[in-house]
């Protein structure tokens, strides 16, 4: 996959340099912090995974860090039977349903802002989007709840999709317009001379050139929406509209004593993201920072 592109080099995956560093003394403090942190990160994760394969009684009797002597899928069966496939599907629908329009609309808006730079109207629009970076979703959740009720969307997946799109737009427009600005003016000019209108220029020139940024923005927002908790908590009610984070919470409320089952639900809901991480680690990591270390 030719995925290692602009944004990857931006986060510093620059060509490997000569081994200048290794000639210097080792960084003991950094090394210590690094290995210590590895333990802090890995130990809970290890515990989650092994415990999720233990039966409830062996969990209580044995050493919590020993791998299960007779691994069982019982916990996973309980999780799957508790309607998790449905919640998984809901999460997929909400994430895809929000991220595709969010990225497409942000891309168009970013293009418009860059292409008509200097006009007062687009400057105003651009400033309005920038302001959005400072609006926390928690602070406006009450009016969003009211609007969703008024639109008759309460307790539907659409109620989660629409605000998710809106709150993905400001950062996406900012990142994408920075990338579109990097496209050489001459290319736009030659498109124009070829008689292409703006709509065609958008898709056949700007789109391919900013694809890495589009992927970055899609990953960053996609992960935030996939893991989102507040919107489903407030805007849905019925069990069959739950997305995974909310389902995890209610499952834990129901089975709090059955720790292996609770941990199996955590593993199962994280698995899809973990698989994506293994496949496209660099893309995902550069997507996570969305150009913050640019």
């Amino acid at each position: 996959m030719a995925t290692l592109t602009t944004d990857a080099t931006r986060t510093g995956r620059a060509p490997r340099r000569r081994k200048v560093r290794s000639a210097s003394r080792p960084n003991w403090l950094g090394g210590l912090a690094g290995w210590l942190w590895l333990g802090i990160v890995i130990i809970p994760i290890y515990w989650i995974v092994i415990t999720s394969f233990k039966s409830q009684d062996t969990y209580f009797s044995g050493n919590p860090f020993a791998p299960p002597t007779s691994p069982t899928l019982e916990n996973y069966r309980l999780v799957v039977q508790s309607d998790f496939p449905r919640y998984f599907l809901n999460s997929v629908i909400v994430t895809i349903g929000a991220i595709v329009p969010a990225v497409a609309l942000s891309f168009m808006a970013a293009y418009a802002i860059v292409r008509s730079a200097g006009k007062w109207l687009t400057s105003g629009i651009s400033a309005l989007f920038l302001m959005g970076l400072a609006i926390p979703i928690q602070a406006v959740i009450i009016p969003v709840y009211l609007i969703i009720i008024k639109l008759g969307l309460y307790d539907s997946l659409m109620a989660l999709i629409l605000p998710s799109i809106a709150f993905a737009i400001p950062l996406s427009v900012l990142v994408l317009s920075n990338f579109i600005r990097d496209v050489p003016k001459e290319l736009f000019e030659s498109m124009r001379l070829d008689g292409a209108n703006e709509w065609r220029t958008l898709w056949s020139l700007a789109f391919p050139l900013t694809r890495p940024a589009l992927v970055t923005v899609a990953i960053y927002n996609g992960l935030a929406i996939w893991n989102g908790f507040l919107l489903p908590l407030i805007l849905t009610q019925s069990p069959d509209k739950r997305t995974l984070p909310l389902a995890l919470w209610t499952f834990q409320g129901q089975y709090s004593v059955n720790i292996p089952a609770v941990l199996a639900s955590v593993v199962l809901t994280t698995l899809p993201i973990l698989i994506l991480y293994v496949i496209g680690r660099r893309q995902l990591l550069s997507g996570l920072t969305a150009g913050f270390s640019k």
Partner: protein
Amino acid sequence: MTALAPPVVRGPTTTAGGASVKRGAVTWMALPALAIYIVFAVVPLLGVLVLSFTTWDGIGSIQASGLTSWRRVLTDPGLPHALWVTFKIMAFTWLIQTPISLLIGVFLAGHQRYREFLAALFFIPLLLSSAAIAITYKALLDPNFGLGPGLHLAFLTQDWLGSAQLAFAVVMFVVSWQFIPFHSLIYQGAIRQIPKSIYEAAMLDGAGRIRQFFSITIPQIKYTIIVSSTLMIVGSLTFFDLIFVLTEGGPGDATRNLALDMYKTGFQANLMGPASAIAVILVLVGLFLALLLQRLGGSLSESQLEGA
């Protein structure tokens, strides 16, 4: 790799500047994004201010009630407490995460193979939802069924979420566990962009590692430190999911920050008016902090700050 190469340019690349063919209008392309953004972000921002002057139980009709909600919120001792908790969380978030993230960032910036591998493991917490992380730690710290009783370790077998101090410490630990990888990742990227020649020159001058860190690394990534600090501080203002699932603001109201105070007032006590007033305060505090941090970073050029 191919995406970076500019496509072959057909036709003349240089044109006479005078050829003023009218450009097609593009402003309309911003309108769909603008519409949905206005309906679900700008209108709610104004709406929350309007709602703070009303009385509403979340179901029935909304009645204008002047300053009732504000009077209620401003005289409630819960508000200074929630502000204090929010401030404590913010201060500790920054004080704990910045030095550790910097250290790990420096460590991960090295190009050794094993560090790449470590980095892959380090970033796993970034993928988990706050709900999943909170649930895991709730199970892990359970005084009856968690890790402590399993290992028969007395100091791990405490009622972690039952005492105010311990619960606060747990929240700070879990927040660090969740967010330090993100900030390390930002620092790693920034540190790798520092030209190696600066370090080489410093080494020739006999500067040690610590000297290099303070005289080269820190000044070179000053901008990134400000971005990371802004994200930490403004982000910590709105911690909700994690605290909600972990402690629900408890025990008592030991971990009830502004966001939780707003949620509980609005969606549990059904007082949407006062909850909106708290939300307005949340917005104001956030704006104040963002402007303050921008002022602190004022010496940096405008164009750099745009990236934040």
